């Protein structure tokens, strides 16, 4: 028996100790995205900047290298460069009411620096307003600043659960047009076989990402849900790459091992489990985390999983998938997504970030909050903050709200 086990081990992949942790691997994949962009720039190839939910499959099929301003802005903000960049943009005339990501990105495009996450300046920009409409103006400004082409895909807001046929036709025409424009920019023909391969990678990444996220369902969870905020960088910047699919698969395996061994990346008690609604305050991650770890509150649900984990089988399904971003779906769909993950991941509270940057996301939260309270019967608490601009966050206010949520969850637990 012992022998067999040893044999099996010697034939298998290297033991876990010598394997690279998935989080390192995932980080390297993102680094490579940016490095590839620098290399392309050096070779004199055009490099693009892309909205996080622009159909990445198109540029990837044409071999174009793109960077992601939202990811860059989050990285700059997390490394405490957010305020500097926001103030630079404000001095250029951009109001402080504008999304912090947009301000950081516009500042970078205008030459403000940004050593926290450098990336080459763009030769074209890819905008898709399924994310929000602020994106449209932001990218128009980028295009004007650098006098470069803007390839725009307009996704109508979905008032209903289903995407209607007219919208599909309308968006399909725009996809075709985007392909044509990008063929001109790249000087290459769009290859259907390559496209199929890229889509297969994107699907594989999405499936692996969803699988990794699904481990939050275990009680106790083998991971801290806050990890997902970091790992989502890969699903934003590299979802068409085989490497990110592999890295997410490795991540899922790690979680599987954690379950088997009773381990977790959450190193505190798990007295309570919550959904964290919205984008975190990147400049204040430590402060966000502090009362949660002190009180043993693990985040086991985040909205990103369904938002970026979409799988499709053909062009039409792909279009439908791109119609479904957090801010482009109707309230009913948004509530259903969230309540689904709250139930699956067994949360007993919801912490809502009223994000001063992200008006669309924060704007519908009061009504969502009301529905969560009614439908889930859990404590729902909101706090004010900002994903990138630290001037919009008060630690004392945040702590009181988290403590209040904790006390509600404690009382409900005792009442059980």
């Amino acid at each position, binding site marked *: 028996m012992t022998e067999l086990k040893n044999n099996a081990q010697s034939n298998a992949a290297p033991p876990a100790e010598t394997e690279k942790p998935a989080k390192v691997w995932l980080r390297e994949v993102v680094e490579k995205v940016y490095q590839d962009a620098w290399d392309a720039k050096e070779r004199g190839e055009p490099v693009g900047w892309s909205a996080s939910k622009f159909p990445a499959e198109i540029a990837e099929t044409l071999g174009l290298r793109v960077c992601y301003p939202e990811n860059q802005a989050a990285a700059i903000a997390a490394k405490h460069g957010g305020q500097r960049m926001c103030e630079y943009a404000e001095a250029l005339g951009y109001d402080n009411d504008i999304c912090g990501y947009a301000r950081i990105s516009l500042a970078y495009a205008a030459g403000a620096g940004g050593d926290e996450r450098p990336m080459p300046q763009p030769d074209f920009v890819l905008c898709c307003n399924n994310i929000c409409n602020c994106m449209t103006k932001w990218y128009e400004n980028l295009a004007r600043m650098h006098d470069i082409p803007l390839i725009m895909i307009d996704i109508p807001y979905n008032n209903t659960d289903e995407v209607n046929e007219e919208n599909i036709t309308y968006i399909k025409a725009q996809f075709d047009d985007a392909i044509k424009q990008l063929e001109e920019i790249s000087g290459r023909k769009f290859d259907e076989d390559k496209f199929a391969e890229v889509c297969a990678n994107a699907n594989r990444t999405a499936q692996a990402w969803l699988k990794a996220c699904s481990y939050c369902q275990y009680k106790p969870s083998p991971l801290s849900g806050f990890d997902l905020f970091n790992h989502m960088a890969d699903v934003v910047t590299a979802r068409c790459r085989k490497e990110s699919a592999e890295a997410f698969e490795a991540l899922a395996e790690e979680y599987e091992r954690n379950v088997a061994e009773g381990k977790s990346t959450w190193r505190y008690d798990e007295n309570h489990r919550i959904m964290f609604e919205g984008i975190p305050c990147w400049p204040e991650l430590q402060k966000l985390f502090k009362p949660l770890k002190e009180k043993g509150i693990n985040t086991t649900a985040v909205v990103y999983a369904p938002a970026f984990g979409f799988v499709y089988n053909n062009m039409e399904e792909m279009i439908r998938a791109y119609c479904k971003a957090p801010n482009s779906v109707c309230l009913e769909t948004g509530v259903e997504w969230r309540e689904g993950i709250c139930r699956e991941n067994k949360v007993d509270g919801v912490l809502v970030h*009223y994000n001063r940057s992200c008006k669309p996301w924060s704007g519908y939260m*009061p009504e969502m*909050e*009301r529905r969560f*309270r009614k439908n889930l019967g859990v*404590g*729902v*608490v*909101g706090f*004010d903050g900002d994903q990138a601009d630290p001037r*919009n966050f*008060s630690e*004392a*206010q945040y702590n*009181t*709200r988290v*403590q*209040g949520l904790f*006390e*509600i969850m404690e*009382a*409900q637990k005792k*009442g059980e």
Partner: protein
Amino acid sequence: MSEIAGTAVSRKYSMGVDIGSTASKCIIMAEGKEIVAKSLIDVGAGTSGPDRVIAAVLKDSGLKLEDMTHIMSTGYGRHSLEIAHSEMSELSCHARGAYFQHPAVRTIIDIGGQDAKVMRIDENGILENFVMNDKCAAGTGRFLDVMARVLEVKLDDLEKLSAESQNEVRISSTCTVFAESEVISQLARNTHKRDIIKGIHRAVASRVGALARRIGLVDDVMMTGGVALNDGVRLALEEELEHDIFTTELAQYNGALGAALFAWQRSKKKEI
């Protein structure tokens, strides 16, 4: 049993200290039933307020700190009270305090110095949910402070003056700074102060009313916090929400009361 607990005196009393942003409040209770002493000082976290308010209740009651079985702090400055055995958020403390005063209460509207909150509690007095103001000062005690200063009237006179108003003025800005300039321009137009004050109360009521609607009002509705003493705001809120809203003379002490009650509960648990 008597060996563990020491003297009879030491088993009897609990203390709740509510350190708010603009005032400190302290209550000593006997056996979680009866208020023995209470005190309020008009300065809060980071000042001499907490020490003074504690000294005042001890003096009034003739008790010593050692007589307290448990001391609980609450409010914005709750973390800074070294003598406290434990702390709890003002949300749970308000819920407990209000329930003690009036067991039929289900919704509590608390307007403090720098925040406004609406809490829903269940039939056992347990906090079910709450909403708080965002980072803006509109709809809080601070808003009224600023307006009273601009109008050159005492905070305590706002109620009386607004009751005399015949012709309420509309203050449309929710932002404290904008509302301040609106008030200044009304004064420049020689509008009567009482009418401006009525408009200010309405502005607070509409702001807090929106919060209350978000969580949903269930009767009985009670108002707590320093602003509850201003009947002008309470009446404006009643109109705004079309609900009866009552308050008690302990409105300002409600958080400290809740803390003293929790403190008693904790000391009993320890004894068991």
